[in-house]
Every structure is written in C-alpha cells, then in structure tokens.
C-alpha cells in the first residue's frame, strides 16, 4: 500500500520554521484555527490528540451555514517522527455533505527545512479502498497517467 503511487501529491513551501509548521498539524489549538474550508468550526472540547506512532488525532467539524452537517475525522497514526513525519489512515464519517460517502484514505505529511527558515510540506494521499477497488490493471495505468497530468500543473 505505502509503496503504491499516491493519487494526490502536493508540495508547498510555508514561510515559517519547521518546528512551528509541525505544531500546526499536531497541536489541537493550532489545527483548529486553519484546518478545513472557510466557514467551518472545530469545537475544542471535541478534539482528542495523542500524537505518537500507534496514536490518533480526532476532531469534529461543524459549519454555521449548514447546521445539519457534522463531519468526524479520526486519524489513526501509523508513523510519526517528531518534527518530520506524520502518516496515518484518515477516516471521514458523520453527517457529511451531499455526494460524500464515509471513507478512509491513507495520508502522509512530510516536513523539510528550506532556506531562510522556511519549511517544505510534502503531502501525499491515496485513494480510499472503494475507488482503489475499481482499479483493474488498465484503470490502474490510467490513474497513474491521470496523476502525472495533475501533478504537472
């Protein structure tokens, strides 16, 4: 699974030191203030973080404009290297927006030092099982090609 080509690869340089960017992902007070689209709120008392290999991160997202939605995120952390790496299975459940089914996707975030005290984030994400399942050999090649097209942009 880990060795398979991820379907989403994002590289981004943040204007902040690595230690702070890592904290933005692993400290609940930090994460609550930036995670998700504009308009969502993450109630602090529903956040549970135990960041270590075999640990977890859990929170709920609510939306003032769509009170019927309640998105539960449970990340089961498989691999954690302090300040350098977070990898786990990202479970999405709850009362989700239309068209989005509960799913689990493997997610890997790497943190690297860049010049001038900046940090390079590398985010990799893999298809949930129900999509990967469709991927017979022909489609698998197709996905790889599709991937390449998306990354080139």
């Amino acid at each position: 699974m880990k060795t398979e080509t991820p379907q989403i690869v994002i590289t981004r340089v943040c204007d902040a030191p690595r230690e702070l960017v890592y904290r933005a992902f692993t400290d609940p007070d930090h994460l609550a203030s930036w995670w998700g689209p504009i308009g969502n709120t993450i109630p602090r008392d529903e956040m549970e973080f135990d960041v270590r290999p075999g640990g977890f991160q859990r929170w709920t997202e609510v939306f003032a404009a769509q009170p019927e939605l309640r998105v539960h995120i449970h990340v089961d952390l498989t691999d954690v290297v302090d300040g350098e790496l977070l990898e786990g299975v990202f479970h999405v459940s709850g009362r989700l927006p239309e068209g989005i089914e509960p799913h689990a996707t493997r997610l890997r975030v790497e943190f690297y030092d860049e010049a001038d005290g900046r940090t390079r984030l590398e985010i990799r994400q893999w298809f949930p099982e129900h999509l990967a399942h469709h991927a017979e050999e022909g489609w698998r090649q197709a996905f790889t090609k599709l991937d390449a097209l998306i990354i080139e942009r």
Partner: protein
Amino acid sequence: MAGTDQLSAVFSALADPTRRGILAELATRDATVTELTAPLSISMPAVSRHLKVLERAELISRSRSGKWRASRLEAAPLREAAVWIERYRRFWDSSLSRLDAHLAAVQAAARATDRMAGDPKELA
C-alpha cells in the same frame, strides 16, 4: 475495457482543472450551462466548449427538455476517481491558504511580544 481512443479522450478531458471542477459540481446534481457558469470566472460559451469535451469523452450526457439542457455525470470509475481527487485538491488548496495565514499571524504575534519585552531596554 474502454478502447484507446476513448481513454485518450478521457485523459485530455480530465487534464483540465476547469473540467475536473465541472465534474465535481455535477457529482452533487444535474445542472444547466447557466448553473455551471455562475460560480466560474469564464464565459458561458467557454463552459459550453468544456461540456462538449466532457460529452465526447462520455464522462457526461446532456438531455434536452424544452430550452434547458441539463448535464448529467455518467457513472464510470475514472469519473468517480477524478471527482474524488478534485474534491481533496480543493480541500487542500483552501486549508493550506488558511495555514499560511495562521502561521503569519502566530509569528507576527510572537514578534510583537518580543518587541514589548524589549521595550524597556530600548527606552533606557
């Protein structure tokens, strides 16, 4: 299994971010060209051209009832995959922009605190 030509049509259709966005929109409901144009910063004829490309690739079908022609997403594994990718790309785009703003705010606050702590010395 789709033929090579069909697959090529699908790839060139999916290579364009606007067209992937249109597919993501159609994942939630059928929509007319007017409805699809509204949230975009491009003209209706341009959206029509994108719809033609998607139709040729058989990723969407278009019905004609009266003067309203609604586009419908056609079920296909690749289409489902493209919609999933597009959703998460949008999610990361907006989250990471917020992350940048958050990191800037946290560092500005830390610098302000440092300056305040340094003030007495500067005054002395």
